[in-house]
């Protein structure tokens, strides 16, 4: 069966193709539920990425903390939020990064949505 077309600007649905592409990356993120694993990840990011079998594109996106690249490489935002947390970033920080705004401008945009 052909998947239903779902073109929504600025949006990637986490479907089977994404889930296959991002399995190793998301598995790494899932492991970060554990404080011990977060410490190990932060001590040796490159080694930790290699241990989970991330490909070069995924490892590079982790190294650059680039959320759009992490999504393009199959990352799911629910799992990526755990990695962002390990880096000390919250969802306003990653929202600002993905939209190319300052964090203050991003927060102002959220407030404006209520008017």
């Amino acid at each position, binding site marked *: 069966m052909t998947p239903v077309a779902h073109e929504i600007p600025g*949006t990637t649905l986490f*479907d089977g193709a994404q*889930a296959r592409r991002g399995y190793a990356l998301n598995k790494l993120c*899932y492991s970060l539920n554990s404080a011990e694993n977060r410490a190990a990840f932060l001590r040796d990011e490159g080694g930790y990425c290699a241990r989970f079998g991330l490909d070069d594109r995924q490892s590079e996106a982790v190294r650059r903390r680039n959320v759009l690249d992490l999504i393009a490489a199959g990352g799911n935002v629910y799992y990526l939020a755990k990695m962002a947390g390990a880096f000390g970033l919250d*969802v306003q920080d990653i929202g600002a990064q993905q939209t190319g705004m300052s964090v203050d401008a991003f927060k102002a945009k*959220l407030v404006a949505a*209520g008017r």
Partner: protein
Amino acid sequence: MAEIIGGVATSHVPAIGGAIAKARQQDPYWKPFFDGFAAVHDWLAIARPDIAVVIYNDHGLNFFLDKMPTFAVGAAPEYRNADEGWGLPVFRPFPGDPDFSWHLIEHLVADEFDITTCQEMLVDHAFAIPMALLWPGGDWPVRTVPVCINTVQHPLPSPQRCLRLGEAIGRAIAAYPSDQRVLVIATGGLSHQLDGERAGFINKEFDLLFLEKLVSDPEALTRYSIPELVKLAGTQGIELLMWLAMRGALSGPVNERHRNYHIPISNTASALLLLERQAAAA
């Protein structure tokens, strides 16, 4: 027979857990959100539920992509919360009700919902925070049954399927041979999107339409496909599916007893809704 005494739906943003842990409920940022719960606390004090069926979505605490059930039902004597990666304080365990869980499981499968059953199940912020909002203080006066809907990995169950799941939950509760008073809780939403260039998307106009239709004509919401709902409510706004399931469990006309809607909490349009069945309102 058991009685459905009502339904409550609320947002479950993780930052709410942080605000509770730091006692920031009366800070100017949080006050418009937390103050909405006073009316629900008053109602709960009178309604006194024995069991809460909590319909929520796991965000990668209990389920990973290795095994991803579309619908999962808890059947454990208790449900534990745990670190989700942010090191936030962990909520006290929630008591389960295995007898009622297995009754629900039997009925749902007989009703052709091929659910996954879980005798061990960690519950994440989407389960724990609404419990803490309804019963602040951390003593849980109800036994709980988690019902988890996949909103992580597409394909997701359709709005129509989630409404029908709720209806089946409602029939199962009504058939439970006991005088238990059952509250149905839905968690998540409303509109928000964390990922992509469209991060920060909030759609107040659609949220208000959704709330209106959820109360008066939930069937009308089944015309949306999942991609249409994502377009209108955001990638995580798809958590509206849980609200539809709760509404299905109430079945028939309802009275809206309380509503709060506030933008923003974190990246989310937050909402709280308390519904009673008209038949049950005396």
